[in-house]
Every structure is written in C-alpha cells, then in structure tokens.
C-alpha cells in the first residue's frame, strides 16, 4: 500500500484516496479543432519515470492535490497543491 502525504492532512493510507490521472493538463477553449480536443481528452504521455499526477483525498479533506511519483518504483518525490508549479526533482529514481 502506498503512503500518500496529503498537503492538508499529512500522511495517510492509499485507500483514503482516489486517483485523478495525469496533472497539468489545461482544458482548451470550446472552439478548438477536433484533433486538439481529442488530444485533451485521450492522449497522455504514459511516462516511464517521474510523473506529475492528481490525487483526491476522497475519504478525508476531499481536496485534489498533485504528486510526483516515479512510475518505475512507485516512490513519491513531492506533494503539492493544485495551481502551484511542478517542483523540480530532476530525473530521480
């Protein structure tokens, strides 16, 4: 089980959280082309390495936040609030 450090509540067990997919994906305006809309809806990087992703503390404070997780090792490198820029952790394994 992953130990996830909610920025508001502190470290909690993974079962309290809901996964929210890749972070930092901006919703385009309504008048974009079909290709751009498809990219927004479906196309993801499928990162092997450090991935910025969203989590929601569903059974806790209820807030979304972002995390940097290495998809190779499942190790978390940072937890940060929605709306703040991605912290620089390099390509740490």
């Amino acid at each position: 089980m992953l130990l996830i450090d909610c920025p508001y509540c502190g470290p909690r067990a993974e079962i309290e959280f809901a996964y929210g997919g890749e972070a930092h994906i901006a919703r385009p305006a309504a008048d974009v082309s079909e290709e751009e809309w498809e990219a927004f809806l479906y196309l993801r990087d499928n990162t092997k390495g450090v991935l910025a992703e969203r989590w929601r503390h569903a059974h806790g404070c209820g807030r979304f936040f972002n995390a940097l997780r290495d998809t190779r090792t499942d190790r978390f490198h940072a937890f940060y609030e929605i709306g703040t820029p991605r912290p620089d952790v390099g390509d740490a394994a």
Partner: protein
Amino acid sequence: MIEIAEGCALAGLPPMVRLVLQGRAAALEAAAASLGLEAPPPMLRAVSGAGGTALRLGPFELLVLPASEGWAGLDAALATVPHSLVEVSDRNVGFVLEGARAADILAGLCPLDFALSSFPVGMVTRTLLDKAGAMIWRTGAQAFHIEVWRSFGPYVEGQLREVARGISFSLLAV
C-alpha cells in the same frame, strides 16, 4: 450505553443539528466569531465555544454543531461573505465509543494511528471505518465521537461489535 467489550461501551447519539460550512478564510472566520471562538480551528481540530462546536474537516470546510436548535446567528454572521451553509442533520448518525479498548477497536477497522501522541484529544478527521466513510473525533483520552452516513449506521455498528468481540476473546485467551 451497551458494553461491547470489557470496559468499553458503544452508544448511539440522539438526533442533533449538523451544518456543513464551505468557504474561504473570511467565511470560516465569520463563523468562528459567531460561535464565540477566537479563530477557526486549525486543520483536523475541533474547538467548542459558547455558540457550539466547529470541526475543521478540510482547508475550506467546517462541520458546525450549534449549541442550540437554531442557527440564525450563524446565518446573519455569514450574510456578507461568499459561502455555502448546508444542514445535514439527518444525513449522519452519531455514535460514542468509550473505554480502555476504544482506540484498539477503531484500529481494527481503520489504518490511522490512534495513539494519543499522533491522534490527540480534540483531533477530528474523516477516514474509513472498514468500507464506510466516517468521521472520527477524539473527545477524550478514551472516548471517541463517530459519525457515519445514516445508511452505513447498522453496518459500522456491526463491525465495531465484531472487532470488540474478537478483542474480548483474545482477552479471555490470555
């Protein structure tokens, strides 16, 4: 009060008024002032004042348990700030779990650490009790106030009794 393990009692709470307040700092401060508190409680803490109790469940969320039946004063205090105040009195049912093994019983259903050093008196949080979402508030060293959504009430009560039964048997075996 029904004894569910040696020296440990579980009781259902009578109906009470519960309000969920969502808002930014200004709304939380206005609500705290109207309850007679100096400031909104910090994250995961409950504070009581003359007008009632405020439980900080999220950065922008308070559960308010007013001391009286009405909450006109709270409504008036919040009139000029953006907020959402919703009455959820009937959504929840409350339990009180008291006794020397109360923390052990909760630990059987929840991954949180219920040691006094990491879950002190006055701490409150939403979490999971087995498979049901629940709010756990430590009101004393050996006393907890538990709230679950109404339809989960019989399930959570049954699970608490089941864990207590297991603890009772393990005590007998020693």
